[in-house]
């Protein structure tokens, strides 16, 4: 492992050029070191390497399981994304003042810019929540009565109130929450995490996306992409019914035996080819990939086969009820993937803009209960089921949306008022792993518009999610376009208040 002779121009730094697959051993461990980390990260990683050999992504096994940067209980993550912008003041962020100010203007408030500032400076009226809030569990968190099931789990949840995202519209905000940037082209949270940790089960993708069967969320592949990271880290779409992965089935008219024969010939040719190029590791990796694909063909359909689940379980997730069936399937599938070692599942509820999106500009009273009814029981079932099987200990569950909504509306006449976008008031909750159940952080003003006191930015939440999975936001970096990039871009603060 000697380096080239010292030379003025030729820096002694191991190169990252290998990542493009040139040279003797593309994607060697050293490539990873140099490309994936700036000096700080590289050094930290060198230490990490000392702890465990082969602990970095390589071409031969980009998804090989890798140790955490520091010990945390959670090894998996289920990210539940409600597409459209969930109203915080009708769900978890209780604001009794709305009653008092019903129909009136919000008193003057400073500190908002952009669209919200405009909303506030134009005529508007406060719309109280149509639903009652009750203190639940030992922690006594207020939860809207819309959530009879989830409110039973409230002592497992840690709430984050008044999160700020970078944009007040769906497209950019959805990207921000899912990728750390409001601009397209950045790796999604799941991509960063599988890049950092690999995945324990090589027979399934490490990062799985279970979309709403009715369609894709805003930005489509943007929310699950690998951005500038290698494609190995992009989310694989998984259907909750039928053939789970696109093109999983071998071509028609070919038996599995025949496929085996073809793979054997392919393998023989590839081996021969590889033996003449012994120092080029990518070839080995591709040979392995075919074997993995072969195994995936049998393992993946088994995951989506929910028929073997007990009646009790099926009922628990609401598979017996047409309202909850779809999301129930998505949640149960997420659990089954975790059981089989999949690192990260992104579970999406809601489709672009339409009836099924949480984008309730009008008729909040009529629309919101429909969305909630679809997810309340399945999400609660997921938490209880994970807990029952001892999996909640090692699984971080995140519930998110791309933004909050306003407690007031500029439309003064509508008899079916809704709520508009609010980039300052997003509420999220976390559960599992080292999350301190029943805790909370952040607080919004009495109208739930934005944070009072120190504000919490989405990057802080991202840093916290990484931390809870044992990943340091500082160390999880990747060189792109001349810069070492990371999920939080400029770094976020860890929300220690919700960590046990």
């Amino acid at each position: 492992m000697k380096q080239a002779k010292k030379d003025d121009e030729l820096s002694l730094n191991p190169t990252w050029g290998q990542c493009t697959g040139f040279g003797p051993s593309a994607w060697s461990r050293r490539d990873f070191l140099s490309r994936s980390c700036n000096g700080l990260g590289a050094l930290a990683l060198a230490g990490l390497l000392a702890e465990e050999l082969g602990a970095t992504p390589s071409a031969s096994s980009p998804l090989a399981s890798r140790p955490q940067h520091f010990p945390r209980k959670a090894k998996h993550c289920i990210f539940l994304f409600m597409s459209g912008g969930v109203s915080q003041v009708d769900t978890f962020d209780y604001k009794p003042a709305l009653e008092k100010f019903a129909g009136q203007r919000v008193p003057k408030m400073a500190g908002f810019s952009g669209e919200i500032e405009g909303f506030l400076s134009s005529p508007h009226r406060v719309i109280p929540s149509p639903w009652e809030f009750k203190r639940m569990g030992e922690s006594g968190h207020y939860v809207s009565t819309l959530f009879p099931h989830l409110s039973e789990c409230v002592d497992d949840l840690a709430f984050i109130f008044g999160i700020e995202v970078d944009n007040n519209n769906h497209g950019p905000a959805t990207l921000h929450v899912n990728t750390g940037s409001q601009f397209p082209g950045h790796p999604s949270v799941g991509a960063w995490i599988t890049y950092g940790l690999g995945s324990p089960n090589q027979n399934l993708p490490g990062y799985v996306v279970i979309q709403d069967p009715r369609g894709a969320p805003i930005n489509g592949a943007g929310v699950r992409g690998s951005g500038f990271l290698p494609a190995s880290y992009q989310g694989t779409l998984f259907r909750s019914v039928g053939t789970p992965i696109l093109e999983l089935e071998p071509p028609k008219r070919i038996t599995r035996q025949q496929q085996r024969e073809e793979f054997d010939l392919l393998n023989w040719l590839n081996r021969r080819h590889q033996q003449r190029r012994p120092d080029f590791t990518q070839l080995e990796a591709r040979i392995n990939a075919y074997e993995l694909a072969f195994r995936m063909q049998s393992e993946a359909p088994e995951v989506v086969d929910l028929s073997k689940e007990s009646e009790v379980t099926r009922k628990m997730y609401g598979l017996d009820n047409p309202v909850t069936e779809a999301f129930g399937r998505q949640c149960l599938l997420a659990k089954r993937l975790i059981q089989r070692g999949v690192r990260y599942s992104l579970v999406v509820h809601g489709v672009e803009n339409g009836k099924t999106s949480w984008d309730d500009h009008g008729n909040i009273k009529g629309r919101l209960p429909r969305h909630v009814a679809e997810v309340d029981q399945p999400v609660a079932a997921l938490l209880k089921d994970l807990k029952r099987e001892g999996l909640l200990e090692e699984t971080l569950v995140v519930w998110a949306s791309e933004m909050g909504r306003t407690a007031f509306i500029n439309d003064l006449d509508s008899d079916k008022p809704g709520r508009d976008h609010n980039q300052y008031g997003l509420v999220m909750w976390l559960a599992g792993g080292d999350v301190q159940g029943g805790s909370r952080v952040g607080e919004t003003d009495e109208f739930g518009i934005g944070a009072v006191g120190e504000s919490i930015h989405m990057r802080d939440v991202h840093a916290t999610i990484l931390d809870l999975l044992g990943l340091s936001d500082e160390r999880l970096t990747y060189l792109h376009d001349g810069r070492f990039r990371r999920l939080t871009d400029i770094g976020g603060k860890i929300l220690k208040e919700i960590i046990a």
Partner: protein
Amino acid sequence: MRFSAFVLVYGAIFVRLTLGAVPAKTESDQPPQTVRAILNSNCLSCHDQSTRTSGFSIESLESIMAGGARYRPAVKPGRPEESPLVQILRGQLKPRMPFNTATSLPEHDILAIEAWIRELKPDVDASAATTYWAFKKPVRHDPPQVQQREWVSNEIDNFILSKLEANGLSPAPEADRRTLIRRLYFNVIGLPPPPEEVAAFVKDPSPTAYENLLDRLLADPRYGERWARHWLDLARYADTNGYEGDRDYPHAWRYRDYVIDAFNHNKPYDKFIKEQIAGDEFFKVTSAAGYPPLPEPEQAVALTFLRLAPFTEPRGEESRDLLLSEMLTTVSSVFLGLTMACAKCHDHKYDPIPSRDFYRMKAFFATVRIPRAKIEVGGPLPADFYRPGDKERFDSKRAEYKKRLEVVKTDFEVFHKPLLERLAEVKRLEMVNLERRSDELALEIKENRNKQSRLIDLLREGQLEAAELDERNAELDRVLAEQTAELKKVTADLAKLRPEGKKGQGPAVTLQDLKKAVNDEADNTVGFEKKDQLFTQAEKDQFNQFTADILALERALERLEPMAMSLTNFDGPPYAPSVPTMYVLIRGQHDKPGEPVEPGFPSAITGHSKPAKIEIDRYKKHPSRNRRMALARWIASPENPLTARVMVNRLWQYNFGRGIVETASNFGKNGKRPSHPELLDWLALRFVDQEWSVRAIQRLILTSSTFRQSSFRVDQKAAEVDLENRLLWRFNRRRLEAEGIRDSILAISGRLNTEQGGPPIFPPLPTGLNQFTSAETRGAARWDTTRGADARKRSIYVYQRRSQPLPFLEVFDSPPLTLPCERREVSVTPLQALAMYDGEFVNTEAEFFAERVAKESGSESGAQIRRAFQLALARDPEPKEVEQARRLFSARPSQQEALVALCRVLFNSNELLYID
């Protein structure tokens, strides 16, 4: 044992790295945010600038370096274990910190601090601005003398060989002819060589066989199709806006054809730059009368480059700032290899680019006017079809589509008329009910009002007590309020049914209403309870198919309008306000303007901060013009130290897989230093001398002995000295890019449609993908699947949909489409195996490949195997390979099936995917 040896080796590397590294700017050594946070939350209360307990403050790097009264420097760069700060935190020095707490900081916090210290350079130096190599003009070097002179084909080889020799290495022997032709074909035109060409080249006795082949390929129009793809990666080219709804950019494709032409016609690179940044500012105003004419169509199209950022619903000044900033950062990284984006919110952390320079550069774009049209997209400008044959070709296409559209629309009319009538009938019934109810209510209200007014009479007549009057009055009020409310609703519902507001008319049922009713989206129309039974599923499906077909044709027609996704400047005075003042935006926030700035070039390069000279016409008629041209001229100038270097380095990278500077879009300090700086300068100067001829540099690179080396060389010594092959002691093996894989498969099956240029194509998507893309149901950015030969054009013509690219390309690392991509990743995933082995595309082509093989080689299995290998791998099979392949033939029920199986296997083979 291996374990510790490993640690040792790595330790050694890192120490050497640290010592050998470039002196860094102070800023980059500042504690990273996490360390900052750890220090702030634990130490700041006693150790800020004002408290300074024990004389120690953690507020700046300098104060940390200065240390406290007791231990002096708190940090020893590169040596955390010897740094008092760490020793105190670890309790190795007294007093243990944080003071008066039961425990030390968490281990990972201390590790983070240690890691930062370890990275600190001992020679912290803040002033290297104007001496930085990349900001100085290239220096003319004579090609160095070498010993192994017979190896040298051109000057490039002198530079490469001299460095090899200096390191005690020698170059690899030339690759064999079969390898060379395959390498050259893929490198230059991105397709596999036909077997006949391979045979001819292998046998060609001419001493210039290689050069002849190269010249033929460089003159081949497929060269542009291959090399334009590299540029499109940099230009973040896509056909959709990438946000909500992922709306169509109907005219973006014309830019793709422009870039293909630029390579095929060897457009001088300086002109290529100017056209893309300021294509609308070529015309010189020479008279006081009239207006500057529209730009040449080609130059209008070139400007698409500036428009390709993802675009979302505009939000006033915020959006404008984002758009202009994106233009600037893309221009800087693509043409100059400068990461200007870093200077938007603060001074650049690594390069001497103050934030002010970002805004001075942004000011060149101050007068940009993006045509307005559709929300979230922006509009086009006129640009006639200028490529030879395009006008006729697209005119006839348009005529064809128009005719088809008419037919479909007529059919649709016939189909939907009865549906409309059915809906109208339901609505008519609804209306009759509502009208009846309306009349009833009006009557009742009238009666109740009368009753109310009679109450007072009753009181006067003494028939009513005062108390009773109040009570009855209140009751009537309540009833009236209810009735009025209901009437209001009924009237509103009626108005929806009858937009003209005329009583007695039938309900107005529009196609829109029908569409909503068919898709059960009748939320906003009056509820007609039986709507579910109105239409059969078959009718609904057919209705939606018709609408989809019509939309697809309309979109196809829109794409063929003679328009470009161009831009221009806004009119200056007196028609529009004068050029706006540009400001430094504090912390990059669009609503926090700081000092005003004039357009100017980066001071680190020019050495001053004077405003750039903007050449306004002599009549001062058009003060909003020529800002971008000033920038373009400066970039495309032989005096610019970066432009030529950055481009020749890109060409080098695409040919060798790695640039002389490995960070092709970052020539700044945080990028990599050149492996062969003299060669880089020599090539840059040659490029300018050859009037910015890209092809001249290509030819130079491709005819070098360096390029012709074998990749097979195993050399223990070379591997020890230079494992990464930066000195180029052999050729770098590589995988085909996504497009190369798809194009190869089509070329090998014999079904590649070689038609060039034109609107994007939409090859069939994998079955089931529709379910994953909501855009399918929303009409926006649809995938209007192309059938037949059109779907088999080269991959560069595939519709680049940001929300869901073609999965076959995506899985093989196609670019993100949203940010400039200077180099493709190469990943290996089982999903590639699924796409290649199970996917419909490969399986279909495998059948055609088999058909072709059978046709070209007859019925004998040995001949078929031989032909299949020749077509797929550009070589004959070895006897053992024939033997193995034959086993497949004996295992399958029919020879045809066996041949398809073999073809599928060959498509999947690594040998096909990799270039030696």
